[in-house]
């Protein structure tokens, strides 16, 4: 079977309203052919809706979708090269497993021998050999999800749209299927647009990630990019764990900035867009925070341990630094000294590891869309 290769997908200024609320609000992104692209965001942020517009199930109120450079317009799903793994699976209950998987091939009127061979192959791929004649209702949730995957993959799509395809699997199987999917995607060269609200999953699998909130695409970048250079407090919080410290820029130095946050003065990396006296957030990942005994001469800030949790490879502390809650995750090896709750310690970080983030008036819980919209041009790109 010659691989047709993945097709590039372009989404331009997509707008989709349900009633008065915009489920997708001016979303623009480009996915390269054969790329693994994830849309990541909390529940209700418009991921599924975006995917459904790309697949042709939902008519956009404005904007365009181009697949392989061709505008899709109002083309119905059966005439697009996209295949979808539905969030609610949508397996055919009146067919058994094999006929579900073979459905797409039969629609293409392939010879039955070929249909059988490929359907079996796809079932083997998702480890469901021997389940061919089971009814859908006789499968577990995870098995059903794998049938849904096989039913789409068997068609060797040029673009595969996946809507949280692994959400019903237990952790072990999920990790296994993540690897499997990633391998498949690489081997088949298919373009994957993968929707998930699990940031770990998105980071582990994707070439690039788009982070969505309330219908807007906040940031697109490689997992590393997004982790290291979040452009909004929401992204900083949503990707991995983050301490976000609000303050105002107090001093600009060649490589760093000083930020006044309440009674504290802290240092962070300087990106170049920061302005003296302007409000700003500083994102510090807990694993970049060091904790030392208070007596050491290492400098840093004084803090009090509020809480401690041992999670195997690391010890997680909650530390109060002059009223500022700070979380630290310290790698653990046998013999690493542990600090007790209530103990006074020194904490700090390498200024280069603290990332400046445009402030938007609050932490991600209270950040509202209007603020964020105003912020967008203030990102590093336009500075």
């Amino acid at each position, binding site marked *: 079977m010659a691989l047709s290769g993945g097709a590039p997908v372009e989404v331009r200024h997509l707008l989709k309203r349900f009633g008065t609320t915009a489920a997708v609000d001016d979303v623009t992104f480009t996915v390269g052919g054969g790329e693994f692209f994830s849309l990541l965001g909390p529940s209700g942020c418009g991921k599924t809706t975006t995917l459904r517009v790309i*697949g042709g*199930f939902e008519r956009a109120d404005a904007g365009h979708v181009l697949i392989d450079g061709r505008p899709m317009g109002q083309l*119905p*799903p*059966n005439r697009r090269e*996209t*295949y*979808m793994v*539905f969030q*609610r699976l*949508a*397996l*055919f*209950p*009146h067919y058994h497993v094999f006929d579900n998987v073979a*459905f*797409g091939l039969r*629609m*293409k009127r392939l010879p039955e021998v070929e249909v059988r061979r490929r359907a079996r192959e796809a079932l083997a791929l998702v480890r469901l050999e021997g389940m061919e004649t089971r009814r859908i209702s006789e499968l577990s949730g995870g098995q059903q999800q794998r049938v849904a995957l096989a*039913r*789409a993959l068997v*068609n060797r799509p040029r673009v595969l749209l996946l809507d949280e395809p692994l959400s019903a699997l237990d952790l072990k199987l999920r990790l296994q299927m993540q690897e499997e999917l990633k391998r498949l995607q690489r081997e088949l060269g298919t373009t994957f647009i993968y929707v998930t609200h699990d940031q770990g999953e998105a980071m582990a699998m994707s070439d690039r990630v788009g982070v969505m909130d309330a219908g807007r695409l906040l940031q697109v970048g490689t997992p590393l990019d997004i982790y290291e250079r979040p452009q909004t407090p929401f992204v900083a919080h949503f990707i991995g764990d983050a301490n976000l410290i609000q303050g105002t820029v107090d001093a600009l130095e060649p490589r760093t900035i000083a930020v006044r946050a309440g009674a504290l003065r802290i240092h962070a990396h300087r990106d170049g867009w920061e302005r003296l006296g302007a409000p700003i957030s500083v994102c510090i990942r807990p694993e970049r925070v060091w904790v030392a005994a208070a007596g050491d001469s290492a400098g840093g800030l004084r803090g009090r341990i509020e809480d401690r949790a041992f999670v195997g490879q690391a010890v997680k502390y909650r530390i109060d630094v002059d009223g500022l809650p700070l979380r630290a995750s310290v790698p653990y090896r046998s013999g690493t000294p542990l600090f007790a709750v209530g103990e006074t310690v020194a904490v700090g970080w390498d200024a280069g590891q603290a990332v400046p983030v445009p402030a938007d008036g609050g932490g991600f819980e209270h950040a509202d869309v209007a603020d964020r919209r105003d912020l967008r041009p203030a990102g590093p790109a336009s500075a």
Partner: protein
Amino acid sequence: MAEARPLIAEARGAGAARTALLRAFLWIGVGFTLLPLAIVIVYSFSSVAYGVFPPPGFSLRWYANLWAQAAFRGAFLRSLTVGVVATAAALAAGLLCALALVRSAFRGREMLRAFLLSPIVMPKIVLGVGWFIFFARLNMQGGLVPLILAHTIIVLPFVVTILAANLVGLDPSLEEAAQDLGASPAVTLWRVVLPQIRGGLLVSGLLAFIVSFDQVESSIFLVRGENNTLPIEMFLYMEKWQDPTIAALSTLLIAFAGALVAIVALAARGTDVRRLLPR
């Protein structure tokens, strides 16, 4: 615990009394339904021509007489034809109507729904008179076509109601999935929608056929002797003769109806019966 016991016993006693009462009503209902049928069946084997119950003796002479009446045979075949064709037409039209009512939102949808159900509440005599004038204008009196058209309209509400109730229970994402996998809307209907509402199709088809087969009031304006349907032929016979021939025919029809129901019940086995009923 000790105090609770009398309460429970009381509740149990009330429950038992209620169950007994319900059961009694059930059997009274069954009795009322079956008794006339039983009387007809017994009467059909009577040995005498006059109406007396119980009959003084038993014979098969009325079945023999029935066999000799060519008019009944012709009328039966006509009724069968009209019933089958009207049912098929109503299933086809009703499926499309039900799909429109359930799957798409458009202005006037509720009005269309009410309009489609209106033949149920309309007196059949009124419909019959209307059709009589209509088909007379078109010079289409006699023959089976007016009957088939009229019966299609009369049975359509049953089909639409049952199929719409079935479709409401279907997950629309199944149709989306089929389309995604390359199925055209027609193929989706055939391979995904219809198999899932098989039970509804069977039951509404059966109901439609029986209503058509049984239809007198509206048909009476559309027949002109040479195209009498079976119920009308029976009616005419009864005006002339009061012998048990009609009882013999009725007995055969009871058996026919029983067979139909049995066949549909067998064919609908394994479908979800709860989904067959309108909500």
